């Protein structure tokens, strides 16, 4: 199976690899994993408390090219968005953008889970109640 050009690009030049200060109140950390393939993904966001905008996003992923590309793309997409908008990103958007084949769909699911986990962590730290229907907010992903 050949990787798409976009996957190869993200794999060779991953965007936003790194770490944010986990203890900061402005930072949310999401750590997710797929038991089937052993991939682990850590995605972190720094949210501006005034504007609720994700100003910084970093990731570190141990896994296949598609998992790295999915998380790299995810950080690109959530940067500059408001928290609630970032929650609207669907794994299918990632599949489409990266032309992931069916066997790699779980990589995109992992990336979506990582975004949600990071935002969930940030909300918990900041006492923001989980908005029940955030999933229905419609925002174009690209």
């Amino acid at each position, binding site marked *: 199976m050949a990787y798409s050009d976009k996957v190869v690009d993200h794999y060779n030049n991953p965007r936003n690899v790194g770490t944010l200060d986990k203890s900061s109140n402005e930072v949310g950390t999401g*750590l*997710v*994993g*797929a*038991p*089937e*393939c*052993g991939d*682990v993904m*850590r995605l972190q966001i720094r949210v501006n408390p005034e504007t609720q905008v994700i100003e910084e996003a970093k990731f*570190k992923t*141990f896994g296949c090219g598609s998992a790295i590309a999915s998380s790299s793309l995810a950080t690109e997409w959530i940067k500059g968005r408001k928290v609630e908008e970032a929650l609207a990103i669907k*794994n299918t958007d990632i599949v489409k953008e990266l032309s992931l084949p*069916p*066997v*790699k*769909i*779980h990589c995109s*699911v*992992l990336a*979506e*889970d990582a975004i949600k*986990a990071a935002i969930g962590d940030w909300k918990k730290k900041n006492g923001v109640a989980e908005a029940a229907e955030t999933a229905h907010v419609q925002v174009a992903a690209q």
Partner: protein
Amino acid sequence: MFQVLDSAVPVACWSCSVAHNESTLFCPHCSKIQPPIGGNYYSVFSLEPRLNLDLAALEQEFHRLSRKLHPDRFARATDSEKEWSLADTALLNDAYRTLRDPLRRTEYLLKLHGAEIGEEHSGKDRPKGEMGASRAPADLLEEVFDLNMQIEEMRMARASGEDDPVLAKSLSEAKAKFEGLQAEVDNDLHAQWTAWDNGDEPARQAAQKTMVALLDRRRYLSNLVREVSETMGA
């Protein structure tokens, strides 16, 4: 993929024409070898499909059947019988290797019962929520992540020809810890066997579900341990 269990359809022996259960290697009536019976490892040993097995009896039966299938015994047999004896020997060996190993046996039997375990189902587009973080061993994620960081550092150190004894020590400690977790999973699996073997349908279903999750976790742990070993041995 696999044959349905309990395929006790009687067929006539090619040699003596007496009907027998098609899953026997030899005709119970005239003792002639029978055409290969297909994929069920339990029927090779005429065993009930159970997780609790008498391993000593299994080994004895393996040796007995191996002797019976030995090529010397077919020196003057027909070509078909020679061919069958070879095919049966291969099947017998596979069956023995699978059934004597607790993990492989559990995986095999659950798969025969329709369970999806391991890599095969990972690519399927499962309904959202059944996959991803909810299925990952959440309790281990931190350690798995840290372990991966250490493995990466170790590889980089190796690549530049450095030796990092502190890192090596912490990796081997991590490896020991994950091996301990593997042993725990093995015990947890074992604890489900009797429920699966003897329970009613709901109990069996519940045990099966638990074991599928444990086997996924086991696979995850083995992959990690293997990766650490490879890194340290490199």
